[in-house]
Every structure is written in C-alpha cells, then in structure tokens.
C-alpha cells in the first residue's frame, strides 16, 4: 500500500513539483495550502509523513506543529520542515518542536527532498 504524504505548502509551483516528484516515486501526496487545512487533512487521511512549510498565510508551520504536539493522534506523525530562509533560529525552533528533518528551498533540490523522505519513511 502506497505511503501517504501530506504536503502543507502555499506556493503553487512547489506543490506542483513535489507532487510530481513524490507521486512518481509511488507516494500518495495530499495537499493543504494552509496550516488550518493541513491539520484538518492530517486528521482525515492520517499520513505517514508531513512536509510542512514554515511561512504560510493564516496558520504557519510552527503553530501547526504546536497543535500536533497537543494532539496524541497527530503527535507521532514525522514532520520534515521546509524553510525558505534557512535561518538558524528557525531551524532550532523546528527541532525543538520535534521536526525529524528540515530542508531549505534554495539549497536543496527535489532529488534531495526525495532522499530525506525515503530516509524517514522508506519507499
């Protein structure tokens, strides 16, 4: 059975690219364009992994993680954080909140994203 990945990201093109890349590898990719929607989808589909953008309209990535930590059902879903700026403060905060890994948009490419995903949940 295909592994389920929930992508929470507001950037259309990023969604498009990641969906293609990960879909090609056989993952089922669910998309939420904003934090609140992301949490809702999480409860619906119970994904194996969450790819979470930090800066989003309405509810940002950190708030989503805080809420996940409060919810026992969501608490154990692994999270890879997608950062735009890659600032140490941001990454530290992500680690604090229990992110398994992180990637910086400008410094990584989709291939590396795939590698990080595989590292977390396998093929």
């Amino acid at each position, binding site marked *: 059975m295909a592994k389920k990945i929930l992508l929470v990201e507001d*950037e259309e*093109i*990023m969604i498009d*690219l990641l969906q*293609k*890349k990960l879909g*090609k590898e056989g993952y089922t990719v669910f998309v939420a364009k904003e934090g609140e929607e992301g949490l809702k989808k999480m409860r619906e589909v119970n994904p194996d992994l969450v790819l979470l953008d930090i800066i989003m309209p309405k509810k940002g990535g950190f708030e989503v993680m805080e809420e996940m930590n409060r919810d026992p059902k969501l608490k154990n879903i692994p999270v890879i954080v997608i950062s*735009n*700026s890659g*600032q*140490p*403060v941001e990454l530290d905060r992500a680690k604090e909140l229990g992110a398994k890994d992180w990637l910086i*948009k*400008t*410094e990584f*490419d*989709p*291939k590396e994203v795939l590698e990080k995903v595989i590292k977390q949940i396998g093929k």
Partner: protein
Amino acid sequence: MKGFRFSFKTKTILILLFFGIVPLLLNGFFILSQLESYLKNKTIQNLEEIERLVAVQIEDFVAEAFNNVIFLFKTPVFSSLTVPLEEKIAEIKKIASYYPNFQDITLLDKDGRILFSSSFKFYGKFSSNFWFLQAKEKKEVIISDIYAVLDPTRPTLSFFLPILDEKNEPIFFISVQLNMEKFLEIINSVKVGERGQAFLINERGDIIAHPYRSLLFEKISPDYPLKEAVFLKKGVVEFTFREEKMVGAFRIIENFQQYPGKNWHLILAQPKEEILSLVRQIRKQIYFFLFLSSIAIALIASLLSRSITQPLEKFISAAHQVTAGNFQVQVEVKTNDEFEDLATTFNQMIKELRNSYLKLNEAKANLERQVRARTEQLETLAKSLDKEVEKRTRELNLKIEELRKSRTALINILEDVEEARKKAEEERKKTNALIVNFSDGLLFFDQEGKLSLINPQAEKFLKVNSQEVIGQSLFQLKKIPSFQPLIELLGEKIQEIFRKELKMGEDLILEVSAISVISEKEQLGHLIVLHNITREKMVERIKTEFVSLAAHQLRTPLSAIKWTLRMILDGDLGEVSPDQKALLEKSYLANERMINLINDLLNVARIEEGRYLYKPQPEDIGIIFSEVIELHKEKAERKKIEIIFKKPESLPKVLVDKEKIALAISNLVNNAIEYTLAGGKVTVEIQKREKELLCLVSDTGIGIPKDQQSRVFTKFFRATNAMRMQTEGTGLGLFITKNIIEAHGGKIWFQSEEGKGTTFYFSLPLIEN
C-alpha cells in the same frame, strides 16, 4: 514721644481745665436731668390740681340739675291721680318758663307715649328708649348719657323720672332735657399752658365734651387706655390726639355727689411737645451757662499757669544767655515766694560764674603770648631748613629725569612684547572658536590622562557640563554613567584608535577616534574626536532592512526556478534533448549564482542588522577546514590548482558556530582558487599559538593592488585586477568573513603583493580552561 512734648505751661493749663471743666459739666448734666423730671412731675401735678377742680364743677352741675328735677317734679301735682292732665301740663309749662336750663320737659304715659312736650320737638313714643325702660324697670330717676339729637354740636342730657301711684307703680314719666351750654363752658374754660385742653369722654370712649365742638361724639384715640383708666380711677396718661403725643392726667367721675355717676373720664392733657419745649428752653440756657463757665475756667487756667510759668521762662532765658557767654544777665522775679528765692540764688551763681570766666580768660591770654613767642622761633628754624630742602630737591629731580629715560626704554620693550602677546591671544581665540564651533565633539586628555578640554558638541554627546569634568582623570570620569562607554572604549591608557563605533543610546551613535598629539617630539596628550554618525547609521539600517526584505522575496521565485530546472534536468518531466539540457544546465548555474548573491546580501543585511546569530560550540576547526577544502577540490582540480592543507597532529577545540566559520573559510578558499591562475598553488595552514589558533590561506594568485588594499574588507569591494579576471562576484565575501571572524573574537588581516599572491590570516581564541 518726642513729637508730643508738652511744655510745662500746656500741662498746667490742661490740668486746670480738666479739674475745672469736667466737674462743671458733670454737674450741669446732672442738674439738667433732675430738672427735666421735676418739670414733668410739676406739670402733671398742676394738671391734676386743675382737673380736680373741673371734676367738682362737673359733679356740681349734674347734681344741681338732679336736685332740681326731683324737687320740681316729685310733687303731688304730678303724682296725684286726682289732678287732671291739663293741670299737670300747665305746671310743666310753668316750670319750663322758669327754668330756661331745661331745654325740654316731656310728659309720657306709663308706656312711653308722649302726652306733652314743652319744646314741641318730640312726637311719637319713648317706649323703646333705653333710659326710659330703665326708669320704668327701676322705678327711680335715670340720667341718660350725654347725647345729641339732631345737631351733634349741641349735646344734651336727659333725666327720666317715673311718677308712682300709691301702689308704687309708675303712672307717668317725665323726661327733662338739659341745656348743656354751661356744662361745655366748664370744659372750655380750662386753660393749661398754651395748648393744654380738657376732654370728657364716656365709658365707650366717645368724646362728650371738648373745646372743639366738631370733635364731639368722635372716638378718643385707640391708644387711650379706657379700661385701665376705669380700674385706676385716676393717674397719668399718654395718648395720641390728632397725630400729636399728649401727656395728661385723667380722673373717673364716679358719681355726681350723692347721685350715681356715669363713669365719665375727665382728661386734662397738654401736648408732650409743649412740656418738652420748656425743658428744651431751660436746657439751652444751661448749655449756654456751661459754655460761658468753661471759657471763664479756661481763661483762669491760662492766667494761673502763666503766673507759674512766667518766672520759669525768665530762668530759662537767663540760662540760655549764660550759655551763650553773657554773664551780665540778672533774673528779676518779684513774686515774693520760692521763685524769688530761686532768682536770688541763681543771680549769685551767675556772678560766681562770671568771676571764674574772667580768670580763665586771663590765663588763656598768657598762654597765647607764650605760643606766639615759640612760633617765631620755629619760623626762623624752618627758613634755614627750607634752603637745605631746596638743594636736596634739585638733586632728586636730576635722578628722576634719569629714571624717566630708562622707563621709556623699558616701556618700548614691553609694548613689543604686548603686541606679540596680542597676536598669540588672537590665534588662541581663533583656535578656541574653531574648537567650540567644530561639528564633531572634541576632548583633550593631557599626558596624565586628565581631561583638559571639552567642546560644546562633546558636552552634548556625553551629557555633561565642562565645569564638572575638566581636570578629572579617566578613572573619575568612568563613574559618570554617560561617560562610561567612551572611557571603556578608550581603555585605561589611551591608545590611538580610528573611527570606532560607539553606541551611546538609541538615538546617538558616535564614531570615536583617538589621536596622539605630539608637538616637537613631546607627547602632549590625546585628542578624542567624536563624530556623530547616528543619521548615517539610521540610513544604513533602513537600507539593510530593505535589502533583507527584497532578498527574501527573491528567494522564493529563485527556489521555484531551481527546483523546476533540476527536475527537468533530472528527466522527471520527460526526456530532454542534449542541446536543451546544456542550455538548462547553464540556466541552472546562473540561477545558483543568483541564489548565492541573494544569500550573501542577506548575510550582510543580517550582520548589519545585528542579528547574525552565532551559536558557538566547541569544534575541531581542522575538521571544518577539511570539509570546506573537500567541497572546493573539484573546482581546484578543474583549474589545475594544487591545494595543500597543513595542520598539527592534534588541535584543541575552539568555540565556533560551525556553519558560519565554514562560510568564512569557504570564502577565503574560494577566493584563493578563483583569483589564482591555472597551475597555481593554494596553501591552507593551521598553526597553534599560545592563546589562539592562527589560520592562513595563501595563494600564488594575482594579488591585491597596494592602493586598494585598505578597502579589501569593505562591502562590495572588488579589486580592479580581480574584476578583469572574473566578472562575477559580489564583493561581499570578505566583508562577511571579517564579520564572522570578529564575532568569534578573532582577528583577520592579509599580506599581498600584486602579481605574486595573497595570504589571508585569521586567528581564533582558544578555549580558556
């Protein structure tokens, strides 16, 4: 009390006046008050006396009428039933003619019907007449009140006489009306004072007799105590009559001799004003008398005091003359008393004084003669002395002349000096003006480290007043809070510093320079220049913020491009031809450069915003170097450049932010490879020193032109030869590197020679135990 000095004479007069006039006045007023009450009483007594006589007359008048009525009508003619009515009428007519005092005699039957009236005035019946009914009931003679029938100015009085039969029942009544002219005459004739008058009033307060007929039957004034008077029978009364206060005596006429009276009030009253006018007149006379007496007393007092003080004045005048030197004066007093004795003694005394004075004068004349002789001797002596003095003076004048000449010479010299001083002063003023008006803050510390100058700008920056701080040492100044940051920057012993930034607060950032001031090889002290760069800093901050914001916004699309290109290149989106691939590859690299530039800009912006975060952890710097070199190996190989890495076997760990220090090393290594021609060599070395690690990156590259070396670490700097060789490059790398190294407490510097190569050095402090 000086202003109120009274002479003895005045005092005497005042005392005499006081003892003469005051008792006189007191006595006068006492007499006056006694007199007033006496006069009042006397007046009342007089009124009462007259009143008593008047009352008797009134009683007599009525009683006589009474007697007549009884005598004339209590006869058998009237009481006998056998005497016919005609005879009775004839009798009445006869009586009426004899007694003109009887105005009218009326015969009534037992029911009050008129049988006959002598005056023919009365008709009808008396059956409801008050007095008739009384007479009928009481069966005795009833006297009416005084009343008026038609003409109120003609009062009258009636008697009702019942005629009884043997059974003591009235068969007829006779009514007799009295003529009251004589009665009124009694009242009119009363004369008291000028306007005194008698009143007769009945029980109800109606005036029944009074000199003014028009007032008859009017009510007496309401303030007349009608009931009280009846109760008291007689006494003194005050009441208002025709708006005038009256004082008088009253008396109740209780009966008319043996006949019962009608309780008439007889009042004899005089206007109060009239009584008082008498009193007033007397009072006026007494006042006049008092006034005359006072004047007389004053005159006497004055004369008396004069007789006492006149001798005294003579003594005083004599004493004055003696004081003035006139010993011929004699006091003449012939009063035959103590004053005369005193005058004799006084004259004797003056005589004695005159003798002493004459003796004294003689002695004085003697003395003067002696003085004159002595003076003559002295004058002779003085003349010979003058000659000597003249000679000496001449000599002195010569000396003075000499002195004056030398003084003139001296003054000339001094004037020259003064001119020089003035020039120097002017120069000093100029310099001072320069210092005071200089836009930068200036402070001067002397050799001993004491503040000897501070200009207004510096005072403003440091929030101090020159008086408070001049002469203070560095150590003392450190205690002033606003001064503390500057002193900390300068250090305990002032070293030369060049444009160091000093944040004094949110709204003041200074650039501090310390310059050694040396004059003719002698160190004078240090000049501290404080340049206000707050505004520049603010502009810079705004710029940085802008860059940061712009860079962030750029990153997002750049990432999207990067990812897209990567996926196309990786064939994720389908086959790509080799030509397409080659072009896309170039686009990808260009995009990467763009990302690097943005990252550099962001780093710079963060450094300048002061939020370039460092999280130092103990790290093996050797490992970091190895990793960085590893990343650059490919590029070096491509350029056929050899990289040599030398380091000691073991290295102590240093506290670094791994990521940042790696960036710093990477920038140095990348530059070395970039600006070294193929076949060149890059040497990376770590040396361990006592307290630090010294790292160096050395190349055999193009070097940095000497004239541009000072700008190597500034933002966007690129050496001209570097730009010729490699067009790409942000000029930010070394700026970032320098900031990273310094943020770790290290130092960075370089040595370079154009065309031969460059060596960059940086140090990192070791962890202290």
